[in-house]
Each structure stands twice: as structure tokens, then as C-alpha cells.
């Protein structure tokens, strides 16, 4: 007898005149806006917003939170997202008043702590990626991509070259083609080989002087290292093509190999993946971008510099692609990432990748008899299975994902990368214990069995979540994107 789950929206708690705020009395002489501002600038009616008490607020959002799975409560093997543990010390440090309560336009001389942190972090990221310079400004991976591609564009233009195309493998994350398109390029999709690696012949074929860049994810989105990466970057450079690394999967290679050493010209970081800043239910993240020296003049501005003991924001960057955010980057996330890097040190970071790889291979091994592998192992930090065998029994990757929710796990990424049929992309991360991995594998194996013996239980899933499967079609057909007060009865 499942209790009906909490189903309120804050608007539905509202009672006219109830308040949850505390504001001081006005202590200056004139307080009526109508006496201060021309009438046409004033809102005639107060906004129709909730009127609730502070307890209403706390209870409502506490209960809503309980409708979520998070890393804090559940194993979250969402491939490509690196749902690792978000350390609490990061949260505490980001909330120090000297960071949390700093206005971005504070005079430089009075912002030395914040600027120093940014400078140190940029240096650490450059070392980790083998890059010459890093901008911390991009707000997320996708914005890092845009920044990177725009720098490549500016570089070619500065060299008097007007290249128009960017090559992107068909296994790429959607942001890669999207960012490239926004940067004004034609996106040319390259076919991957059967094992998910770049098809060198196809690449060769496409590499012409109209190509500005080749953009590739490493390890790739099948969780595999590109074995011929050195050839690839060399081939590209030979044609004057810049090579961009999508660094979303950096968690696999910390201290093992470096994008810069592999020949990449640009690489972005997802601090919300590799460097433990929380995902926040969708963001904020931070997507710093690192470049080789030849691209350094084009970095977003301002750039944090250090002269002697003084840190400064350098705006005198005539070749810069400009700004991506109003201010300097998602500083709160930078504090967390810096805290993490200083917690781990070089050995700790190396150990992160070793264990991320080990965990992924362990899961892959335990599941390989029950699901099809997209590519044979060893994998790097994640493995991509295919539910094509189960699909024949009428059970799709989505169905398996839903069943996992009932068994107490969040789901792997599904249907990504697009080149794998019924893809289940599993990234355990290094912060999960063997016990957890075993419990998850047991559940996956149970589901594989159920697909054979009792598929209906999978198709009926989830049954223990706050809601059951939702009607996506209806949502898209007649979009209801805001709450509307129900008409008064009678």
C-alpha cells in the first residue's frame, strides 16, 4: 500500500497575506516608490507569487528533495557525467565569506585572495592537461567548447585563413556539433570504426584546407582510448587543422597522459565532472579551457595575471575572442575544484584515474556475459553496453533504466553514444566501493534474467518511485510550462 507521494507545488500552499520573509522597516524618509518614480515605470499590481510561511518553504522543498535520487543517496552510474562524490569540504570552503560574499567588481587590490586562487587553479589545470594557458571563464563544458572553437577560428583568421568546416565523429556528445555550429562552422560528421575509434581513412579523406579543426573526445564516448591518437593529431597538424579535445572524460587519464602531450591544441575541462564540483540538478558547472601557446592571445578576457606578488585582471588583450560571461567564471565552482586539487595532490589524482578505470572494467567484466559489449575491453573510466539482446525480448535500454530505479539505483546514460544500439553507458567513478558495484551488477544481472523470464516486471517499472512512467508525448504536444491557478469552482 504505497503512500501517495508528495504532490504539491508551492503555489498550491499559498494563502493570501501569509509571509515567509523578514525585512526591516524603512529607515529613510521617503519610501513610497510612487513618490520617487514616474508612474509608467511602476507595476500596477503586485506579482501573483506564493504567499507562504517559512515552515511552508522548508517543508515543501525538503519534501520535494526527497523525490530525487542524488549521489548522496544513490549510486548514480550515469555515463559521461562522472557522478562522483562531492566532498563536503569543497562546499564549506566555497562558503567562506571572503569567497562567497565577494563582489566581482571589488577593486583588484582588495580581491587578491580570490585572484590568487584563480591563478593557482589555472596553473594546476594547465599542468594536468599539459597546456600552456587556461581560461577559467567558461560556465560549463559547452561554453568551453564554444570558447575553444572561437579561439581556433580567431587563430585561423589571424593567419589569414578562412576555413569553414569542423570535423566531429558521429560518437560525439551533442554539444560538440552544437557549439561548433554556433561558432559559425559547418559541422562534418565522421564515421567511427566498429570499435568506436576514429576511422583514420575517413579522417584523412576529410582533412582538407577548409577544415579548421577536428574535435574529438578522449577517452571517446565508448570509454575507449584512441590508440592512434598521436597519428591523428599529427595528421591534423600536417593539414593545418587544429585539434580540440572534449575533456569531459578527463577523469580517466589524470597523471597518466596529458592532452597537450598528445598534440591537442585546445581542451576543455568539466570541473563538475573530473574535479568534484556538484552537478546541482543540472548545474552550475564550470568549463575552463586550456590552450597551447599559439592560441594564448585569443583567450577570453580578462586573464588573471601575476606580477611579482600582485594578481590582476588583464583586459589588454586585443586578440581575445571576448567575454563569455559577464564576470570571471563560475568562481564558486573554481573554489571547489581548487580545494579538491589541493586535497588530492598529484598522487591522489593519479589514483583517481587508476581506480575509475579499475571500477569500470570490473563492472564491464561482471556484466559481459549478460549484456552485449559495445566494444571489447579493457575500457577506460566507463563502459558502454548494448541491450540489443534484451531488446529482442521486448526490453529496451529505457526499460532497463526504469527497472534499475526500482532496485535502488539511478540509471546509466541511455542511447548515448548514438552509434551504439540500445546503449547503456555506465560510469561507476572511483568514489564508489566494490560493495556498491557488486550490488549494482547483481541488479543488472537480475534484470537480464527478468528480461528472459518475466519481462513484464521490467516493463511495469518503476513502481516504487514517486511517480511511474511519465507521458512524454503529452508533455510535448500541449506544453504546460507554467502553473496556472485552477479556475475557482462554481
Amino acid at each position, binding site marked *: 500500500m504505497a503512500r501517495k507521494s508528495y504532490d504539491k*507545488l508551492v503555489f498550491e500552499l499559498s494563502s493570501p497575506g501569509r*509571509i*515567509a*520573509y523578514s525585512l526591516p522597516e*524603512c*529607515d*529613510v*524618509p521617503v519610501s513610497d516608490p510612487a513618490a*520617487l518614480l514616474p508612474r509608467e515605470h*511602476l507595476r500596477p499590481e*503586485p506579482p501573483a*507569487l506564493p504567499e507562504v510561511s517559512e515552515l511552508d518553504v522548508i517543508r515543501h522543498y525538503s519534501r520535494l528533495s526527497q*523525490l*530525487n535520487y542524488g549521489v*548522496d*543517496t544513490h549510486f548514480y552510474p550515469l555515463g559521461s557525467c562522472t*557522478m562522483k562524490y562531492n566532498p563536503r569540504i569543497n562546499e564549506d570552503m566555497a562558503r567562506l565569506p*571572503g569567497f*562567497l560574499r*565577494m*563582489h566581482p567588481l*571589488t577593486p583588484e587590490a*582588495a580581491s587578491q585572495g580570490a585572484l590568487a586562487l584563480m591563478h593557482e587553479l589555472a596553473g594546476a589545470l594547465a*599542468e594536468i592537461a599539459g597546456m600552456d594557458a587556461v581560461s577559467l571563464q567558461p*560556465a560549463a563544458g559547452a*561554453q568551453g567548447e564554444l570558447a575553444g572553437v*572561437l579561439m581556433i577560428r580567431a587563430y585561423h583568421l589571424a593567419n589569414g585563413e578562412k576555413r569553414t568546416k569542423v570535423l566531429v565523429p558521429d560518437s560525439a*556528445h551533442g554539444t560538440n*556539433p*552544437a557549439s561548433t555550429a554556433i561558432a*559559425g*562552422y559547418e*559541422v562534418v560528421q565522421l564515421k567511427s570504426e566498429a570499435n568506436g575509434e576514429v576511422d583514420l581513412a575517413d579522417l584523412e579523406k576529410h582533412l582538407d584546407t577548409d577544415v579548421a579543426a577536428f574535435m574529438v573526445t578522449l577517452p571517446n564516448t565508448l570509454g575507449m582510448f584512441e*590508440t592512434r591518437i598521436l597519428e591523428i593529431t599529427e595528421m591534423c597538424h600536417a593539414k593545418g587543422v587544429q585539434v580540440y579535445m572534449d575533456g569531459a572524460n578527463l577523469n580517466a587519464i589524470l597523471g597518466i597522459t596529458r592532452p597537450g602531450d598528445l598534440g591537442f591544441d585546445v581542451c576543455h575541462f568539466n570541473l563538475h565532472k573530473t574535479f568534484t564540483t*556538484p552537478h*546541482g*540538478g*543540472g548545474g552550475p558547472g564550470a568549463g575552463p579551457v586550456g590552450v597551447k601557446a599559439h592560441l594564448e592571445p585569443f583567450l577570453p578576457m580578462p586573464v588573471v595575471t601575476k606580477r611579482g606578488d600582485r594578481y590582476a585582471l588583464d583586459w589588454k588583450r586585443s586578440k581575445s575572442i571576448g567575454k563569455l560571461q*559577464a564576470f570571471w567564471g*563560475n*568562481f564558486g*565552482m573554481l*573554489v571547489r575544484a581548487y580545494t579538491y586539487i589541493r*586535497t588530492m*595532490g*598529484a598522487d*591522489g589524482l593519479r589514483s*583517481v584515474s587508476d581506480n575509475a578505470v*579499475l571500477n569500470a572494467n*570490473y563492472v564491464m*567484466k561482471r556484466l559481459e556475459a549478460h549484456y552485449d559489449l559495445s566494444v571489447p*575491453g579493457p575500457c577506460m573510466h566507463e563502459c558502454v553496453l548494448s541491450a540489443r539482446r534484451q531488446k529482442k525480448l521486448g526490453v529496451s535500454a529505457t526499460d532497463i533504466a526504469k527497472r534499475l*530505479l526500482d532496485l535502488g539505483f*539511478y540509471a546509466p546514460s541511455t542511447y548515448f553514444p548514438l552509434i551504439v544500439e540500445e546503449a547503456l553507458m555506465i560510469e561507476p567513478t572511483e568514489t564508489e*566501493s566494490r560493495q556498491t558495484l557488486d550490488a549494482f551488477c547483481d541488479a543488472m544481472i537480475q534484470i537480464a534474467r527478468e528480461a528472459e523470464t518475466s519481462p513484464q516486471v521490467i516493463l511495469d517499472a518503476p513502481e516504487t518511485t514517486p*511517480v511511474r512512467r*511519465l507521458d512524454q508525448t503529452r508533455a510535448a504536444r500541449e*506544453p504546460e510550462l*507554467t*502553473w496556472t491557478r485552477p479556475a475557482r469552482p462554481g
Partner: protein
Amino acid sequence: MRYIPNTPREQREMLAAVGAGSVEDLLVRIPPKARLARPLALPPALAETDLIHHLRALAGRDADADSHVCFLGGGVYDHYIPSPINHLISRGEFFTAYTPYQPEASQGTLRTIFEYQTMIAELTGMDVANASIYDGGSSLAEAVLMAHSLTGRPEAVLAGGVNPLHRRVVATYAAGPRLRLRDVPAPDGVLDLDAARPLVTERTAAVVVQSPNFYGCLEDIRAAGELAHAAGALLVVAADPVNLGVLATPGQLGADIVVGEGQGLGVPLSFGGPNLGVFAAKAELVRRMPGRLVGATVDRDGNRGFVLTLQTREQHIRRAKATSNICTNVALCALMATVYVATLGKQGLVRVGELSTAKAHYAAERLRAVPGVSLRFAAPFFKEFTLKLPKPPERVVTRLLKSKILGGVPLKAFDRRLSDCLLVAVTEKRTKDEIDGFAAALTEALA
């Protein structure tokens, strides 16, 4: 290592299970030449206590808005943040979740976003709002690109009062599509309609106006809208939603798209990020909007539920043809805003606006009475205003720091013509005493 649970023994057992002798065996696909042959050159790892010491020392070098009285604005403001917000966003179920791709296990996030969309639509006077964009700058850039792709027109006209930091972001995003930005001067602190008129043509995708603008002045949004619409262009309005309890909504004044920096809605200053890019539009534009949208639906049992919807606009489906490249957004900041708006509510948001503008006007009176100081513009302002100082503003703010006052933003870096100007913001948090203290300190700093 406390974040890595595998013990040496477990590692051995797991390696045995996968049939590898060591992790190295799993890294065989990496070309040996490509391997890093040395440890990363990073500063040594710090234990938690040492780390706290180190970061406290860094943070201690900053003049923050707790230790100082803050009159800084320019896009983000020291508004009051009610205590429940931090407690709620610190719940692990919220902050350690991903984008709600499995809606059955993400109703908490989905419902808060749905509430957020409703609140932003109501505040801005628009039909729909998305789940957030990175910040006010990128939100504005997305709006301009959206207008461009909706109209197919190659230019955007920007009022001179648009936050120059945001304008720079627009310029960056405009590079790819080679969108031409045409700036209308604002010699009197507001859009010069006569100067704008010839620039708004059939080539214009959007007219962009911000109100209150960067200088604090209120713009005639309706007039800008008429200009835009007459030319078949869209009106994009940048607005600070925390003001909209008191100020007329952009929707009501003719906006087609409303964007803005939502930091005032409960998001900490945090040295400028993460912030909250607000994005709202008319209903008919929804299928061309950037970013995520949450919609209501029902589950198999007929119970109400919420999902990410209209995803065919997005990069993970539409790829190069997506309306935007955005993936990760600033969901947790949107949650802060949601809790903020729920907490302040109908009356509270009005009150915040009333207090802010009242105190700003009081401050303007007090400060302009300081010898040599005047208001730079005559146009009505809301919570921020531009002062003309008799001495270089950079030096003045440095002096004010000694009195623990963050006195304002010198405008020289933004506009050389305003090199004698200081932008001063006053929120509901500033007390009369603090304002009087500022006036006294300014008098002294100028003496």
C-alpha cells in the same frame, strides 16, 4: 584516500576478477609514447585542517560584503539572502543530482524548475521561461541569436545602456553567425531614440534595451518596442527580476524576449559566478528557445508528474541544428531563486523593491550633497545611480576601502567618457546609518 574506497586488497581482487595483473594492464590502449613519464607537478596534497588554514588565509585577503559595506552593483547586487535558501540547496538530494533525465527519480528537481519557470514568467510578464542560462550576459547573447535565427536578419541594435559586460558577451556569441551589433549612444544615460531610429531597419533582428540600465536609469521600454516592432524586429529586454515586484514588467511594455541576471534572487555574489541567466519569452516563440524546459504531464496511473520537454530544440537531440549549445545550466541557482521567490513571495518582492529604491534615492540625495559631487544623469533611476566626482573615482574607492566601504564601481574601464564617474548601488540591506557613513567617508575622501 578518503574519496577512494578501494583498498589495496580490493584492488587486487578486482584486478584478478577482470584478469589483469595491475591497472597498467588496463591502460594498454594508451600508446607508451603518450604516457606521462613523471608525476604531475602540483603542490603537495593538504590534510583537511591545513587546507582550511590555507583557504581561510586566501579568503582573508578579500574585501567581502560581510566585512565591508557594499555599494557595488553593475549587474550583481548585495541583496539580502533569507536563511532558508542555503539550508535547502545544501540537501544532497538536490545538489548532488544530475539534470533530471530520469524523471521518475528526479521529481524534486523537475518540480522546482517548473515552479521557477512559473515565477519568472510571472515576474517578467511573459508566457514562458526556461530552466536557466548561465548568466545575464550569456542569456542576452542567446536572446540575440534567437532573434537572429527567428528573423533571419543580420543585425541587432543595442541601447547604449546595456551592461557593457553583457554586451561583450553578445559580441563573442555574435562572431560565429557574423551578426552585426549596432550601438545606440546614451549621452543622457538613456536610449537616444532619435539616434536609434535610423539604425532599426529591415536588417534588424532585435532591438535590445536594458532597464534599469547599466547607469541605473529607467528606459522607455515601450518606445523601444514600438521602434522594433515597426521594423519587424523583436524587442529584447534585459531586466533584473528582483526589481520586478515594483517595476512594470517588460512583458506589459511589449517585450518579445526578456533576459536578465537573476543573481538578486537569492544567489550569492561569489565573485561573479555562478550567476543566474533568466530567459523568458512569448508563448509562440517557445519552440525556438534555448535551454531546458520542464512541462507538466501525467504518469501511467494518471498522477501528475513533470518532465523535461520540447527537447527536440536541444543539442543532445538536434546537435548542430539545436537552438543553443547549452547543456549544463545553473539549475541550483535557479533553485535558490525559486526558494527566494517563495520566501519573499508576493508582498516581499514588492517590499524589496520599495526599500531598494527608497534607500537608493536617499543615498543619491546624501551623496550629491557632498561638495563637488553631482548626479551624472537626470533620468529617473531605481536602485543604482551614476555620480560625477571631483577626483578620480579609482582613488576615491581605494580611500573608502579604509573605512570598510566598497563605494562603487568607477566607470572609466567601461567608458572613457565617464572616467570621472562612479556607479553606486543601494539595496534594501543598506541602512540609513551606513548611507550616512558613506556620505561622511566620501566627504573625507574628497577633502
